[in-house]
């Protein structure tokens, strides 16, 4: 079992290694954080029972923007996904959608 895991880990490292070579040759200076995450997960001994993901995220393409730029959504996520005022869990982000009588999201009315 340990041998298998060792092979799997080695395979994963090889895989990530190959991919990082690809990204370097494509002219990007930074290796995206997702790869580091994937490789550290693979090499850490912490995950014993669950099968660690072979690739945490899909590989970065040549024209993709780096991951960090995506978190600029106007509607912020609540801490722990719990709305602090209404104590709703898993509810819509941002201000209360029904505050104007219709269901509003990002200025758009979705239902009325």
């Amino acid at each position: 079992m340990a041998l298998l895991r060792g092979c799997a880990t080695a395979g994963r490292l090889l895989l990530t290694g190959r991919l990082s070579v690809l990204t370097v040759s494509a002219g990007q200076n930074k290796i995206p954080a997702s790869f580091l995450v994937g490789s550290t997960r693979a090499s850490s001994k912490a995950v014993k029972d669950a099968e660690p993901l072979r690739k945490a995220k899909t590989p970065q393409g040549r024209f993709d923007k780096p991951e960090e730029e995506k978190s600029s959504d106007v509607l912020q996520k609540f801490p722990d996904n719990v709305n602090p005022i209404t104590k709703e869990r898993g509810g819509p982000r941002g201000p209360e959608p029904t505050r104007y009588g219709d269901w509003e999201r990002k200025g758009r009315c979705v239902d009325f």
Partner: protein
Amino acid sequence: VAQQHSISTQYPVVDHEFDAVVVGAGGAGLRAAFGLSEAGFNTACVTKLFPTRSHTVAAQYCLVVKLGGINAALGNMEEDDWRWHFYDTVKGSDWLGDQDAIHYMTEQAPAAVVELENFGMPFSRTDDGKIYQRAFGGQSLKYGKGGQAHRCCCVADRTGHSLLHTLYGRSLRYDTSYFVEYFALDLLMENGECKGVIALCMEDGSIHRFRAQNTVIATGGYGRTYFSCTSAHTSTGDGNAMVTRAGLPCQDLEFVQFHPTGIYGAGCLITEGCRGEGGILINSEGERFMERYAPNAKDLASRDVVSRSMTIEIREGRGVGPEKDHVYLQLHHLPPQQLATRLPGISETAMIFAGVDVTKEPIPVLPTVHYNMGGVPTNYKGQVITYTEGADKVVPGLYACGEAACASVHGANRLGANSLLDLVVFGRACALTIAEEHKPGEKLSPLQPSAGEASVANLDKLRFANGSMRTSEIRLNMQKTMQTHAAVFRTGSVLKEGCDKMDDIYQTMDDLKTFDRGIVWNTDLVETLELQNLMLNAVQTINSAEQRKESRGAHAREDFKVLFFDESKVRHSSGNQGPRVWRKTCEEQNPSCLKSSVKYPQSVMIWGAMFCSSLVFLQTLGP
């Protein structure tokens, strides 16, 4: 060439046999399909779109339901009763909704939501883990006397999306056969009985006949008959058109729900909060025209007043843009900080959909279609009914649910968040009715070998059409005509003019030209088929609107501002005369000669204020 054994020698025809066929895989279609599979029926689901791409995915709002027994958890939820939800819905439908259907829906609502939740739909929760409900959609307690009710459940921002994915995921447990990207052409009718569906496989151009004892129509609405609508390009009323071509009537098509501020071109709706925060509507002269129509409320007048005012401004020539067919919603006079805090995301929306910077330029808006209350008439069990010899008659083998059907729970006006509930409850109802009345593996009644010939002939005609007008031109003409004549502002003269124009446009369909003669993935052909369907819907809508000489719910006429009483048809049940009367329009259309006849079935008395005796009354109303 003798066509005894095949309906076409040019197109490969494949025959299938199932216990049940569902046309359409949106919320209602999926629910019906796997409900039937669960009951053991060999079911086919024929859809022109992949299930998770149906228009239900656009519904971000929520389900209205009463979850009983929630004892004021967090002070948000309170004691609730389905009868109060029933009252709100009947009142909201402006007394046109079918009380049987509304009773069925509101009583089944809690069970339906719990069932969805058991399927894995991640509703938002309160601290105790119960489903969180918020106030929305004109819901009240104690028959309108107990204040605002909190009944609306949701899944973060994407209830419709989540619903569709939950239902699709659940349906994969059962062995429903999905025929994705098959365009349903017509119903196979014989002696007034529905025996299946004939469809075109878009991928390879073959014709497929699905023979089944039970056919369920769940094809959605027909927003695309109007120039400005929130619906997807695929909302073309295919179900209504198939039913019309089968010689059956459609119901309440004149009731189309509009929203005043939809972005010109894109069709997205701008929230009323914009006007609530100080945004104003201006015409080509830069005038704040709402001051003339509603001196007190101004831009905060009710939606129908705002829509009508906008339409009148456009009609009188004070619209903006190159075609002077819309108005502006101005927000740049408000401080940008206020906009960003109160209405986060609006600048993004305006930039993406309208291409304007909301802090510098106004947003072009016009009244936009959002929902169609009308459709295929059914009873509360989901069976399609027709109206002959003065009475309702069930059409054997045919069922309908969702926006395509008209049960009718929405009546003349739909309440917010009732639509998703309608989908799941009646999707399930169709499956239950079929399971009750039929058994899986029943022998199919014989079908004539030439069934569906006319559909294939029509397909062929369209594929080689060589007139002078393109599909897109005719479609645009129809959409513009409907937007000008059958939108919010309706009067006798305007509607009559519209009816004549629509007749002319319908005649131009004979002069169609298509370009793609191929058979594989012929989108030109499919768009033309959709145009045929849209035309039937449009013509019936405008004719029904012209015939209904009253104002009720979403159908508001300037020349007949009050509700129409017909005292001679009143049926007294206890000697008291109630305040309102409802009648449904049933429209029949003969596609080839465009003669439509509108019939008004028997009126029924509705007791406006006497809901203490509502249960007794409901039981006396038969199916």
